[in-house]
C-alpha cells in the first residue's frame, strides 16, 4: 500500500491546517473584548440605516457563469487523462490521439460559439437585464 501513504500524509496535513485555522479563530475570540451596541451590530451601509433586506436577488448572469463553468470544466476533465497518455498515443498510432481530441474539441467549440453568439458572455448586457 505504499502508493497511498502520501494520501495519508495529505489527510493528516489537512486536519492540521483546519485545526490551526480553527484554533486561531477560537483563541482570538477569547482575547478580543466584546461591547456590542445596536449601532455597531448593524450592517454597514455607509453610515445610514440599512434599507430593505440585504439578501437581494441577483441578475441571472451570475448563475449563468456558474453553469458555464460547470459544463466547461466537465470538458476539461476529459482533457486530463488524454494529456497523460498523449505521448503513448502518438507512439502507438501517430494521429489517433489528436483526431480523437480534435473531434471532442470541435464539438466543444460549437457549443462555445453558440453560447457566445447568444450573448451569454456579454456582461454589459446584464445591466439592462436584471
Amino acid at each position, binding site marked *: *500500500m505504499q502508493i497511498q501513504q502520501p494520501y495519508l500524509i495529505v489527510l493528516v496535513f489537512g486536519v492540521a491546517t483546519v485545526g490551526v485555522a480553527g484554533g486561531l479563530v477560537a483563541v482570538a475570540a477569547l482575547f478580543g473584548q466584546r461591547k456590542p451596541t445596536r449601532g455597531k451590530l448593524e450592517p454597514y451601509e455607509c453610515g445610514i440605516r440599512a434599507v430593505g433586506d440585504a439578501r437581494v436577488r441577483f441578475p*441571472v448572469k451570475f*448563475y449563468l457563469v456558474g*453553469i458555464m463553468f*460547470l*459544463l466547461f470544466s*466537465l470538458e476539461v*476533465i*476529459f482533457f486530463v*487523462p488524454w494529456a497523460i497518455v498523449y505521448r503513448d498515443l502518438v507512439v502507438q498510432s501517430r494521429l489517433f490521439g489528436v483526431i480523437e481530441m480534435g473531434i471532442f474539441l470541435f464539438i466543444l467549440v460549437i457549443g462555445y460559439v453558440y453560447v457566445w453568439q447568444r450573448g451569454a458572455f456579454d456582461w454589459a448586457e446584464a445591466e439592462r437585464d436584471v
Partner: protein
Amino acid sequence: MAAIPTSHYIMLSAALFAVGVLGVLIRRNAIVIFLAIELMLNAVNLAFVAMARHMGPVATKMGGATGLVDAMQGQVFVIFVLAVAGAEVAVGLAIIVALFRHKRTLDVDEVNLMKW
C-alpha cells in the same frame, strides 16, 4: 495495511443510495431533491469503483487488449457518470431558476403545470 473488503464499499454505497432515495421521497424542496439525486449518483460511482477493483483480474481473462485497460472498465464508467451528472445539474438548475422566476416557489407539489 490490509485491503478493504469489497463488501464494505457495497454497504457504504447502499447506505448512501438509500439516504438519497429517502431524500427524494420525503422532501418537497426542488433543490434538496436534486441534491439527493446527486447523492444517489455518487453512491453508484462508488459501487462502480469498488467492483472495478473486485473484478479487475477477472475482466483481464475475458478481454483481448492489455490487462490494465480491461481492469479499468468500472472506473471509466465513473467519468461518464460525472459528465452526465454535471449536464443534468446544469439543465436541472436552469429549470429550477426559470421555475422560480415564474411561480416564486420551489415546492414540487405546487408545480403541476404538466398535470391536467
